[in-house]
């Protein structure tokens, strides 16, 4: 897709030949795409910054739990086939709860990723310095958000369904699970998280390469307080 790369071995003798002919690189093929480079960066970061990743995923998790319960409530109340005003009010309230929960989840993702971006300024700046484009770093942050929110959503569905089931039993309603509504919760949660990740991704993409002041020794390997 993109530029050719030098593909000879890096033997000492060969280096000079390559170096003396900048611009006349041997045509190779790009075996790894830009997106997979970003994905690899994202996976490395998810592992290294486990606590931060947990925080981001928990945003989607809580959003999904609340929204799933609300959706089960809506489906069950609708099944009563009673068109009274109070029923419609309950459906409206449940819908509002679901939307609000997803919005809060999205905000938590943004908050956590923004802190992560400033915490990892040294890493991003170094990646830019060794040749990552701004878009590579932006995609990396978006992939981190999507992977984590996907995980948070998948895990959040389980307690959401359990709590919903418990609520139905307590209220002695007819148990109805509308798969379309559950699918809507999953999509909504992912979309909310992705939209929450856009601003941190843009911030990360604008990182200055080899920025002064954030280049630090990596020896400490400290994971700073995610509640900062």
């Amino acid at each position: 897709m993109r530029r050719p790369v030098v593909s000879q071995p890096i033997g000492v003798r060969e280096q000079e030949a390559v170096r003396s002919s900048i611009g006349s690189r041997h045509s190779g093929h790009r075996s790894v795409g830009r997106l997979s480079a970003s994905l690899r960066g994202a996976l490395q970061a998810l592992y290294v910054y486990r606590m931060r990743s947990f925080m981001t995923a928990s945003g989607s998790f809580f959003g999904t739990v609340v929204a799933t319960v609300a959706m089960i409530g809506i489906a069950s109340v609708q099944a009563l086939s009673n068109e009274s005003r109070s029923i419609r009010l309950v459906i409206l309230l449940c819908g509002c709860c679901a939307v609000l929960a997803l919005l809060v989840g999205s905000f938590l993702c943004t908050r956590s990723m923004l802190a992560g971006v400033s915490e990892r300024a040294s890493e991003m700046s170094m990646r830019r310095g060794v040749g990552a484009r701004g878009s590579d770093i932006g995609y990396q942050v978006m992939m981190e958000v999507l992977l984590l929110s996907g995980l948070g959503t998948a895990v959040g569905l389980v307690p959401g369904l359990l709590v919903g089931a418990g609520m139905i039993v307590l209220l002695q309603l007819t148990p109805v699970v509308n798969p379309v509504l559950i699918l809507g919760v999953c999509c909504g949660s992912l979309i909310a998280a992705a939209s929450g990740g856009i601003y941190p991704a843009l911030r990360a993409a604008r990182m200055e390469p080899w920025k002064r002041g954030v280049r630090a020794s990596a020896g400490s390997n400290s994971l700073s307080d995610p509640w900062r």
Partner: protein
Amino acid sequence: MTEHETRPPSAQDAGNSQGTPSSWNATGQSVPIEEQETCGMALLPLQNTKSPAIVVRNLSKVFQHRSARIPALRDLSFQVQRGEFVVLTGPAGTGKSVLLRVLGCLTQPSHGDYWLAAKTMSRMSAAELADIRNQHIGFVFEEPTLLPGVSALDNVALPLLYAGFARVEQERRAQTLLQFVGLETRTRQRPAQLSTWQQHRVALARALVNNPFLLLADEPVGRLDRRGRLEILAFLQALQQRGLTIVLATREAELACYATRQITLRAGRIEHDAPVPTRRIAINELASAGFTGSDNGDGSQRETLSIRIQEEFL
């Protein structure tokens, strides 16, 4: 502080057969070399090995901080030939690091032109500059700045990841480079498990893994002891002997005796630019200081860098 970015006058660049960014198409993506040749674009200057590594003409860099204009570089003009080892010296705040950032394609000059291997850098977009950094420029700083929690091998392979190499090739090259700096037994260790001296060598391997045309170093030995400094300087001298162009910025004027040329900056201008009359050879000093083996002198052991170069790579 925001940068005051103004483009150089278009008349200087437009139609300049030496300097037009011919290898980049309108969408900002580089064109494979075969395509360029069929397009008949100006590639000859790039393949001319006699062209200087660096040509800087009337280069200025001005930073804008609120209403204040802070000139960092004023009207610099110089050339660096291929295979030169240049030391930029001068007191703090004279623009050494800013000049290094411009030469390293980290930022664009406010005015003037900069050619790297006869290819103009002054009109390139940020993404194009990132590709140039990725493929042709290596950086070494005072701090190693490695990815925490990631093995030394993956740290060294990072530039290759963005260059699009397959995983196997990345590991093979990174392994070779780690062997080059004497860390072949430490490839799976993370930065936190390495000493500062070892982290510096991982950073050096990362700077060299993309097979650079130009190596830029900003205070690379600032935090090292005498032996570490001499070993890094010997390493740089060995690289220069093999044809690598090196530009090193430092406050310590005495480091200039290890280079072939010294440029002294003062208040953003070149005050002095001359070849170094009597050059010191770091590897000889290492030997005369008794730093020849892996013995530290006090019974402790350390891996050596320069000795390895001398024996295996020169």
